[in-house]
């Protein structure tokens, strides 16, 4: 039997010891003497969150298919264990072998949201790896980042040896082969990194020099050596039908946030909402073959024993074979007594019919994401959902027996006016009115409308990357306006309003839009005790405020100013296929309230067609 890294005394003292013992069904054990590369795959948040993430399951399966690689997992120790590990000087370990991470060849860290950045430092520190890449030596693992936040890697560039830009299925083999070569020949870390920088999609921060203008904006971003490419190309898998996908994902013992089989049906989104980073960086939209999806659904259910299955994509309603797939799943799941958890589908006759078959109408709620309260604002953000469509969908649903509606909005969008803000309350009211149009005898009690707002963060590689972000005070003022307007509605008792924390959102803006200098702010915040910033129970704004002050970080410069059209951005060296010219055009269209067609209606020439497939070549 495996020897655990933590003793019984510790494991019985901490919350949920199952987070740290490994041994889960479908986890992979190998003989460490028989592999060349040991890879620790990390999601820098607590186990239950990290285990819910599909990307790691894909790479874990893919890496372990190689005989010469053993990929294991590691997550952020929760605060209780964090304290014990520091007190007792226990090095961070991987779940499978329970061996110390510091002896691995690679530590891969997935970057899913900015608010996990201090957790990266926690993982490095507990693993006894120097926080700064510049201080690491031959004996330390290579720290590689990937995932959506690596599309602006600069604020955390100092902490990583490399980043992988794009979809992991593409060039990891090349990277591993190169690493083996370098290891066998006993060549230096620097040597390896320099050669790795030439692999398409691999970004090695230390191979680039950065200079700034007097006003603080970026002046130049240049490779240090001639053989290092000036630009890094996002990697995209064009043949999704033959790409590797885990038929037997790891099944946790404790309930993970996503505790079900997840079937990925599509990558990318045809919609082009102007605030959405995923909608741009994952272009072009590529659909997976429905027949293989059916096969995977069955195999994954049989190999995991999960009692629920869900579909994953950015917009499942745009998957053309959805009716065929869903009908198949309904049959399969009724045979296997498995629940289907439907992703947020566009509310129409088809989705309502499906939902009424797979869930208890009385208990479930409908979700709409109008994102903005007025049609004008929705045109600015290019969200193609109209009030008419929402009211029609809600009406049909109410007639079908539903009485709970969830609405998602954003506050602080570019060009936003008071009318747009109040529109959130007005739209909620209209939906409530639609409910009370149904004769009393045919409806079930009151309706419950929950309107939630998050605060808009302009993200890199979106048409809004030039936009200014609101201040915390502006956000809170706007939330107050919504609150008051909701209270002024006739059916206010049927409408509940929630809003996200404003201070965290502003920080997210700093971390999403920063440059290399922001690393010192993150480091200072971590030293001040910031950790698990994505959790409201552990988030400490004071630790961040102190760090911002002590490092002289200018929030106005990074977050609240509108950026010049000609400004060189820290992330401009990454080529995502979608061009900066297209983003500029879209920024102009936004300001004029001009809507852009979705990829299936009409190509807008975003640049993603250069990958040679997907929706760009449909029909």
């Amino acid at each position, binding site marked *: 039997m495996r020897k655990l890294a933590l003793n019984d005394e510790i494991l019985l003292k901490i919350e949920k010891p199952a987070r740290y013992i490994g041994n889960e069904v479908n986890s992979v054990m190998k003989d460490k003497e028989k592999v060349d590369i040991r890879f620790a795959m990390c999601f820098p948040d607590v186990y239950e969150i990290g285990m819910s993430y599909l990307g790691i399951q894909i790479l874990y399966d893919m890496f372990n298919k190689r005989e010469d690689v053993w990929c294991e997992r590691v997550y952020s120790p929760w605060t209780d264990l964090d304290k014990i590990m520091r007190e007792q000087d226990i090095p961070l370990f991987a779940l499978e072998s329970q061996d110390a991470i510091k002896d691995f060849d690679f530590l891969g860290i997935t970057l899913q949201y900015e608010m996990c950045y201090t957790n990266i430092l926690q993982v490095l520190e507990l693993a006894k790896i120097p926080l700064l890449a510049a201080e690491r030596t031959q004996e330390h693992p290579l720290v590689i980042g990937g995932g959506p936040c690596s599309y602006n890697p600069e604020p955390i560039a100092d902490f990583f040896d490399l980043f992988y830009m794009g979809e992991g299925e593409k060039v990891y083999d090349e990277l591993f082969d190169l690493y083996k070569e370098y290891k066998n020949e006993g060549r230096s870390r620097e040597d390896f990194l320099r050669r790795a920088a030439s692999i398409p999609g691999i970004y090695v921060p230390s191979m680039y020099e950065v200079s700034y203008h007097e006003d603080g904006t970026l002046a130049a971003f240049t490779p240090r050596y001639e053989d290092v490419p000036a630009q890094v190309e996002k990697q995209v898998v064009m043949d999704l039908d033959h790409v590797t996908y885990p038929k037997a994902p790891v099944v946790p013992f404790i309930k993970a946030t996503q505790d079900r089989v997840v079937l990925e049906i599509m990558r990318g989104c045809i919609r082009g909402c102007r605030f959405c980073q995923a909608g741009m960086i994952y272009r072009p939209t590529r659909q997976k073959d429905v027949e293989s999806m059916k096969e995977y659904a069955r195999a994954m259910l049989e190999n995991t*024993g*999960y009692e629920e299955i869900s579909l994953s994509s950015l917009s499942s309603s745009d998957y053309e074979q959805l009716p065929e797939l869903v009908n198949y799943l309904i049959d399969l799941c009724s045979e296997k007594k498995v629940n289907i958890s439907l992703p947020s589908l566009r509310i129409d006759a088809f989705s309502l019919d499906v939902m009424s078959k797979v869930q208890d109408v009385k208990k479930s709620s409908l979700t709409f994401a109008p994102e903005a309260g007025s049609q004008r604002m929705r045109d600015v953000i290019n969200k193609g959902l109209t009030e008419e469509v929402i009211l029609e969908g809600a009406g049909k649903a109410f007639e079908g027996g539903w009485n709970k509606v969830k609405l998602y909005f954003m506050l602080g969008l570019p060009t936003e006016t008071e009318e747009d803000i109040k529109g959130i309350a007005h739209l909620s009211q209209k939906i409530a009115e639609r409910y009370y149009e149904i004769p009393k005898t045919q409806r079930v009690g009151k309706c419950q409308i929950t309107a939630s707002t998050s605060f808009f963060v302009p993200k890199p590689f979106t048409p809004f990357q030039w936009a200014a972000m609101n201040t915390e005070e502006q956000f809170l003022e706007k939330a107050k306006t919504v609150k008051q307007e909701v209270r002024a509605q006739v059916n206010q008792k049927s409408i509940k309003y929630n809003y996200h924390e404003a201070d965290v959102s502003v920080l997210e803006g700093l971390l999403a839009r920063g440059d290399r200098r922001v690393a010192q702010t993150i480091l200072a915040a971590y030293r001040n005790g910031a950790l698990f910033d994505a959790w409201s129970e552990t988030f400490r704004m004071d630790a961040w405020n102190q760090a911002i002050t002590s490092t002289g970080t200018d929030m106005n410069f990074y977050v609240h100013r509108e950026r010049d059209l000609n400004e060189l951005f820290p992330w401009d060296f990454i080529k995502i296929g979608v061009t900066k010219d297209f983003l500029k055009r879209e920024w102009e269209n936004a300001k004029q309230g001009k809507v852009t067609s979705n990829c299936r209606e009409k190509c807008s020439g975003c640049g993603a067609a250069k990958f040679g497939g997907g929706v760009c070549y449909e029909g």
Partner: protein
Amino acid sequence: MKVRVKFSKEGAMKFIGHLDIMRYFQKAIRRAGLNAAFSEGFSPHMLMSFAAPLGVGITSTGEYFDLELNGSMSSAELTDRLNAQMAEGMHVISVRKVPDGKASKAMALVAAADYTVTFYEGKAPAGEWEKQVEAFLNQEQILVWRKTKRSEGEKDIRPWIYKLEAAENALIMQLSTGSVHNLKPELVAEAFYKYLGQEPQPFAWQVHRGEIYADLGDENGRKLVTLESLGEIIE
């Protein structure tokens, strides 16, 4: 058909709590391709019931749950299929057919259990404690401070200790278990320390459950039989 599954839970699996073990078996049963019976409704659940929850940190070689199955399959095949799905530390010992009906439900039957409390190195009571076990047990009353859902106060646990013996670095006990009088082995060990005039060190022992029994006796006395023996092997 209702079957009774006997299993062991050892190694790292002792850190998995009771509810998670239930979820673990539900998935294992699906993976094993057993034709389990389900409740009706939008969220059907497997018809299974566990005999007696095992606390986190305790190992066992005598755990039980009952499971409703459609169709039939031999004990050997059921056992093999389940064992092909077990994580390290979990093992299915037997699968036997048991009569239907509430009275024969594993949970309702539980009357007693065997435990071994093994002292970690250097953490056994001081002195020749082995020789004191008999005297400890010969007391008329063993009073301990006990907190239950209903009340708190001094309780006599002596009637619920069916057996207590010293072994090498360990105490072996048979205790009343189940919904009527559920006596925990830790409580007995603590009372023994107290009797010796000693205080146990933190994390002094590992508790292991060896078997769970039903009581077929009457007012004249107990007749403990293992839950397993109430089932019959399916050929």
